[in-house]
């Protein structure tokens, strides 16, 4: 292409006559302690930046949550009504029509199914929000300076808040099918916490991949649905796969989604005892959380300075 210079205008910059004159830009920058704009900070500095933004993360996630239903007439009632309707649909199809409750009594199966759906939805929505965390918020990324990990973490937090609303439904379902509050319910806290860390890690990974390839947003629903059906959301893996080779059931039961689902079911449902859990289940849950939490964070941070390029 040819650059047509306009009207012979000449640069008339008047450099300062001083000791700085002979310096090239890099040396001048070094002399006055200027730093490269938009460079990636070190990992520890990044964590510190992120911590100083914790109030923004909180405010942003609850703002998103509120904005979600602000146009609906029933408003925030949908926070609870949406998961309830979801549970009803799945119960109608898998519980009544397909009879997927093989190996479980009705008092166990219904809370089993509802827990599975809510807990898996938590991970599923975190992944979907993660894919769009950067690619769907380019305006924000290009306008303001903040650690980009703020976005995926904020969206995961929004999903946690959403899950806590679903828990109201879940507790009601558990009680109406004969599982009353007990000390075991306290296990919900560590189980949810570990799943939350796992989800953040996964969301961070998806956010970096989604920032480079926005097409993932089209692909992920299929991946997530496959994952859902393979994790025993609406059936007991050990009962359904009793006549298949044992390693298939093992692989399915140790996948993170199944591990967290089973832990939360075990904490909540009286008739769902420890015999349904694979061995070393808490260690597995911790390992998944640490591997994805730390790995995802570092993976996301590595591309920090590249987010927002068109």
């Amino acid at each position: 292409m040819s650059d047509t210079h306009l009207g012979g205008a000449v640069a008339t910059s008047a450099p300062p006559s001083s000791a700085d004159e002979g310096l090239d830009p890099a040396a001048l920058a070094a002399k006055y302690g200027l730093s490269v704009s938009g460079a990636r900070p070190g990992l520890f500095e990044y964590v510190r930046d992120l911590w100083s933004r914790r109030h923004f993360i909180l405010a942003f996630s609850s703002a998103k949550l509120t904005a979600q239903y602000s146009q609906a007439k029933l408003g925030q009632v949908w926070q609870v009504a949406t998961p309830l309707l979801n549970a009803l649909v799945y119960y109608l199809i898998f519980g009544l029509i397909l009879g997927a409750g093989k190996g479980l009594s009705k008092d166990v199966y219904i809370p089993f199914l509802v827990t599975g759906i809510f807990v898996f939805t938590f991970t599923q929505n975190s992944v979907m929000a993660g894919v769009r965390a950067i690619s769907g918020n380019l305006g924000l990324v290009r306008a303001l300076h903040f650690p980009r990990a703020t976005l995926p973490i904020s969206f995961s937090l929004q999903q946690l808040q959403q899950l806590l609303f679903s828990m109201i439904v879940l507790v009601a379902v558990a009680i109406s099918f004969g599982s009353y509050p007990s000390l075991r319910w306290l296990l919900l806290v560590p189980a949810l916490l570990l799943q939350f860390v796992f989800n953040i890690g996964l969301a961070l990974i998806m956010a970096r991949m989604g920032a480079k390839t926005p097409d993932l947003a089209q692909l992920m629903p299929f991946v997530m649905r496959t994952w859902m059906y393979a994790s025993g959301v609406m059936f007991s893996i050990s009962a359904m796969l009793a006549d298949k080779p044992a390693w298939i059931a093992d692989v399915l039961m140790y996948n993170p989604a199944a591990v967290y689902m089973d832990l939360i079911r075990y904490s909540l449902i009286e008739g769902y005892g420890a015999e349904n859990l694979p061995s070393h289940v808490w260690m597995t849950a911790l390992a998944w959380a640490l591997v994805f939490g730390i790995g995802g964070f570092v993976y996301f941070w590595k591309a920090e300075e590249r987010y927002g390029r068109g």
Partner: protein
Amino acid sequence: MADTNRDRVPTVICDDVHIVYRVHTGGGGKGSATAALSRIVGRGKAEVSRGVRKVHAVRGVTFTAYRGEAIGLIGTNGSGKSTLLRAIAGLLPTESGKVYTDGQPSLLGVNAALMNDLTGERNVILGGLAMGMSREEVRSRYEDIVDFSGINEKGDFISLPMRTYSSGMGARLRFAIAAAKNHDVLLIDEALATGDRKFQIRSEERIRELRKEAGTVFLVSHSNKSIRDTCDRVLWLEKGQLLMDGPTDEVLKAYERETAR
């Protein structure tokens, strides 16, 4: 070392900055589905393939800005002014060359963090936090922001969702939030033309205040008048290249001569 040049402390140095946008054209035109697939799978050569267009928005800009300067950026539409501003703010990565800055320059552009479905009240808080203010800072400035925006002059609008505001009211609140923070290096992108006359005067006043507090101010504007009123140095960009860099009067005269033709 005895430094004799007392006032000339550089705050922003651009060293041969190039910025390239990569635009996905959605595989349309000649890009077939298989080409799109190889683009996703392949590396390296992928960028040359059809479907991804490169837009070379800024081509080799070099300049040094000093403390206390107010610098105007002029040029026709699409000349790379806003892009350069974003690169200075560290929001767009450079293709080659470097931008050195003193502290973290901030772009006066909080709009993107605000949500139309939320009340003005929550948006003030959200916007403040998004700009990196602490919770206490936001709380202490809340009244000032609302007063400055003048949103509540016609009734209690701050507790209504922002989508119910008129476009002028929305713009006023956004400017009020954005201008609430003090910055080392402040970048303003056409923010002066919002609201009614009364609000314009108030915001020009605020910009002057910010200039006093900030080390260096960059202003992108198509209004030669507001450049003349606020800036003492002007950079003229055309097709991503720095055409002229000098005192406001000199550059504006040349620019006006050029655009009048």
